[in-house]
C-alpha cells in the first residue's frame, strides 16, 4: 500500500520517538509574529537557551499593526511595545524580520507563500492557528502555542502525536459566483467545527484540482475552523507554476530538481486514508454564516434553521447564537442589514480576492449606511493591486483602501466594530466578540458576497446583484 502526503512528510522529518509515546518532528520552517512569539523569547532567556536554527525562522508583524497610520511609535503604546520586543528579539537572535515598508511585510500566511518560503513536502509551524493555510502547497503546516514556539526556537522540533488523515473529495464543477470560501464554509457546515479533531484533511477532487493556489489557500486556511489540525492539497503543476520565480525558490536547474522532489510528496494513488468524504461541488451555493461558529452556515437562498430541530446543548448553542446575532429562526438570511463590510485577512486578502471584487464593483456604489474597508494581506498584494489600479476602483466605489495587516479579522489594531454592528466579513471566524466589540456581529462570506452586501446594505446573492451569468 502506498503512502499519503502526510505520512511521507512525517517520515522525512522524524527525529525519533519520545518517552511519553509522542514523536519528535523536525520543523523545516518556523514563522513568527508579534502576538504569540515575544513571550517565547522570554522563556528562552529564562532557560539561558539560544535559537538553534535562526535561518529557519522568519518574522513579520500583522495582528496589531494599524492599517491607516503605520508610523512609529504606533498610537497604541502596547502595540508599540510588542513591536519593539519582537524587533529586538529577532535582531539579537539573527532572525530575518519583514518590517513595515520593507516591501515584504504582511499577514504571516500571505507572506510565506508569496515569498516562496512555503514549499511542498516541508513542515511549517507558527504560533497561529491559520498556519493550516500553507498546506495548500502540499506541506504539513501546524498552528502551535507559545510554549511550542519556544520548543521550536530552542530545538527546531516539536513533540507530536501522529494524526489520522481524512480525504475530502470535492467533485464536479463550481457554479458561477461560487468560490473557494463557499467550498470551505460548506465543508465545515457538513462536517462540523469539531469534525476534524484528530485529523489532517487532504482536499482533493476536480473542484480542488481546478483551483488557483490562492483559492487553495482559502480552503486550507479554514481547516482549523473544522477542527482539523492541518489541511493540505497534493502538489501539482498549478503549485509548481505558482512557485517558479518566487524570491526564495531555487531557480534554473535548482528549480527543476526541486520540482521533481516536490512531485514525489503527492499521495500515492493507492495511499491509505482513515476516512474518505465525498462532497458534490456542483451543489454548493454561495454560503454565509448565520450564527457564532463557522459551521452555523447556510446557502444564501436558505432560511435560518430552527433550534427546535436540534437537541440538548446544540439546541442551546443555536438559541444563544440567534439571540446574539439578533436573528429569527425560519427567516431568510438574505436581506439581513449590515453596517460594515470587511475584505481582507489571511483567508481572503490576496490579489485574486481584490481582483474578483474589483471586476464586479466597478461603477457601483457602497450603500451610504455601510462602512466598507479593503485591507490587502501584504505589502506585495498592495503593490500589485495598485499597479493594476484596483485601489482606485475600490475607493471610487466607496471602500477605504488600507495598509496591510490582520485588521478587523480579530481587531487587535484600531479597526473594530462598534456596539452591535453587523459586519459582512471575508475573514474566518464569527465568534462572539471576534471583531473587537463584545456585542459585535459577524457574517462570514466570500469577498464577492461581501461586495454584494456592501452595495445592497444587506446580505444579498452576489449572482443577482452583479448579474453573474452561468457559463458552461
Amino acid at each position: 500500500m502506498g503512502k499519503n502526503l502526510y505520512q511521507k512528510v512525517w517520515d522525512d522529518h522524524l527525529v525519533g520517538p519520545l518517552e511519553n509515546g509522542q514523536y519528535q518532528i523536525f520543523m523545516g520552517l518556523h514563522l513568527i509574529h508579534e502576538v504569540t512569539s515575544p513571550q517565547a523569547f522570554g522563556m528562552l532567556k529564562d532557560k539561558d537557551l539560544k535559537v538553534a536554527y535562526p535561518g529557519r525562522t522568519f518574522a513579520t508583524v500583522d495582528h496589531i499593526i494599524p492599517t491607516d497610520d503605520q508610523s512609529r511609535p504606533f498610537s497604541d503604546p502596547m502595540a508599540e511595545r510588542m513591536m519593539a520586543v519582537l524587533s529586538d528579539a529577532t535582531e539579537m537572535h539573527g532572525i530575518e524580520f519583514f518590517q513595515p515598508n520593507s516591501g515584504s511585510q504582511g499577514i504571516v500566511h500571505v507572506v510565506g507563500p508569496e515569498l516562496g518560503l512555503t514549499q511542498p513536502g516541508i513542515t511549517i509551524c507558527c504560533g497561529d492557528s491559520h498556519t493550516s493555510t500553507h498546506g495548500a502547497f502540499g506541506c504539513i503546516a501546524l498552528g502551535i502555542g507559545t510554549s511550542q514556539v519556544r520548543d521550536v526556537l530552542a530545538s527546531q522540533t516539536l513533540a507530536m502525536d501522529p494524526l489520522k488523515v481524512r480525504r475530502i473529495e470535492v467533485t464536479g464543477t463550481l457554479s458561477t459566483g461560487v468560490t473557494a470560501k463557499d467550498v470551505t464554509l460548506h465543508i465545515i457546515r457538513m462536517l462540523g467545527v469539531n469534525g476534524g479533531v484528530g485529523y489532517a484533511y487532504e482536499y482533493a477532487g476536480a473542484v480542488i484540482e481546478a483551483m488557483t493556489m490562492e483559492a487553495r489557500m482559502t480552503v486550507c486556511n479554514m481547516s482549523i475552523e473544522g477542527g482539523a489540525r492541518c489541511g493540505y492539497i497534493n502538489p501539482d503543476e498549478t503549485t509548481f507554476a505558482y512557485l517558479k520565480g518566487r524570491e526564495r525558490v531555487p531557480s534554473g536547474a535548482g528549480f527543476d530538481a526541486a520540482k521533481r522532489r516536490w512531485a514525489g510528496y503527492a499521495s500515492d494513488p493507492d495511499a491509505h486514508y482513515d476516512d474518505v468524504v465525498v462532497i458534490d461541488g456542483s451543489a454548493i451555493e454561495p454560503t454565509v454564516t448565520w450564527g457564532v461558529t463557522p459551521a452555523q452556515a447556510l446557502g444564501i437562498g436558505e432560511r435560518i434553521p430552527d433550534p427546535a430541530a436540534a437537541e440538548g446543548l446544540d439546541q442551546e448553542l443555536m438559541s444563544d447564537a440567534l439571540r446574539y446575532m439578533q436573528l429569527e429562526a425560519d427567516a431568510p438570511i438574505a436581506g439581513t442589514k449590515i453596517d460594515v463590510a470587511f475584505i481582507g485577512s489571511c483567508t481572503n486578502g490576496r490579489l485574486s480576492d481584490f481582483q474578483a471584487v474589483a471586476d464586479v464593483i466597478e461603477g457601483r456604489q457602497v450603500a451610504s449606511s455601510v462602512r466598507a474597508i479593503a485591507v490587502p494581506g501584504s505589502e506585495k498584494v498592495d503593490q500589485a493591486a495598485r499597479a493594476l489600479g484596483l485601489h482606485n476602483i475600490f475607493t471610487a466605489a466607496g471602500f477605504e483602501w488600507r495598509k496591510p495587516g490582520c485588521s478587523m479579522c480579530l481587531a487587535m489594531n484600531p479597526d473594530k466594530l462598534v456596539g452591535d454592528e453587523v459586519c459582512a466579513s471575508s475573514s474566518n471566524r464569527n465568534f462572539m466578540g471576534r471583531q473587537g466589540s463584545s456585542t459585535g456581529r459577524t457574517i462570514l462570506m466570500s469577498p464577492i458576497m461581501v461586495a454584494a452586501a456592501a452595495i445592497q446594505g444587506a446580505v444579498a446573492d452576489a449572482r443577482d446583484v452583479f448579474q453573474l451569468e452561468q457559463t458552461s
Partner: protein
Amino acid sequence: MNDLVKRSGRGVYVQGNDIDTDRIIPARFLKCVTFDELGPALFYDERFDTQDVSKGHILDAPVHQGASIMISDTNFGCGSSREHAPQALQKFGFEVIIAESFAEIFHGNCTTLGMPCLIMEKTQRKALAALVGHHPDAEFLIDLQAQTLMFANEQFSFTMKDSAREAFLTGRFDPLDELLVAKDAIQAVAARLSYSDHSG
C-alpha cells in the same frame, strides 16, 4: 496534597459546546509581552458588560470562588492557537479541565503548562456538573493513574489522551528538555533533508 498524578480542589461548571478561545480570552487582552496579567481577563466579555459591571457569571458566584477544576462540554478551546487561553485559565486558578472533547491545539497547550485535560463522556459529565452545582464546597479527588474521580461520595471515570497521561505520570509534561537531548539526531535530520533553510 496536589501532585502531578493526584489532584484535588473544588469545581465549577461552565456550560456550553464549542467554547472558543476568543471567549476564554478576548483578543484585546492579547496585547502583552508576558502572560502574567491574564488571570482577571478570563472569560471577560461573558463575565462583565461594556461598563465592566459583573453580569453574574458562574465564575464570579461567591460559592465557586477558589475553584480549581473546570467542567465544560464539547470541543472546549476551539479556534485560535493562543496560549493566552490556557495561561488565563491557569493564572485564574484552574488546574484541571474536564470536558467531553477538546480542540487539539488548546489541549496541547494545556498539557505543556501542566494542566491535565480530562475527557468525560456525556452522561457522567452531566451528572457531575449537576452535583457540583449542589455541592460547591465539596472536594474533588482525581487520580490520573487510575483515571478515577471521586466527588461527593460518587465515583466517576474519565479518559486522557495516552501521551498526555503518560506525560503526567512520568512528570514530563513539558517536553523541552527531552527535545534538546536529541541535538545530534536533530542535526542529522536537518542535514538529511533535501532542502535547507530559505534565507536570502
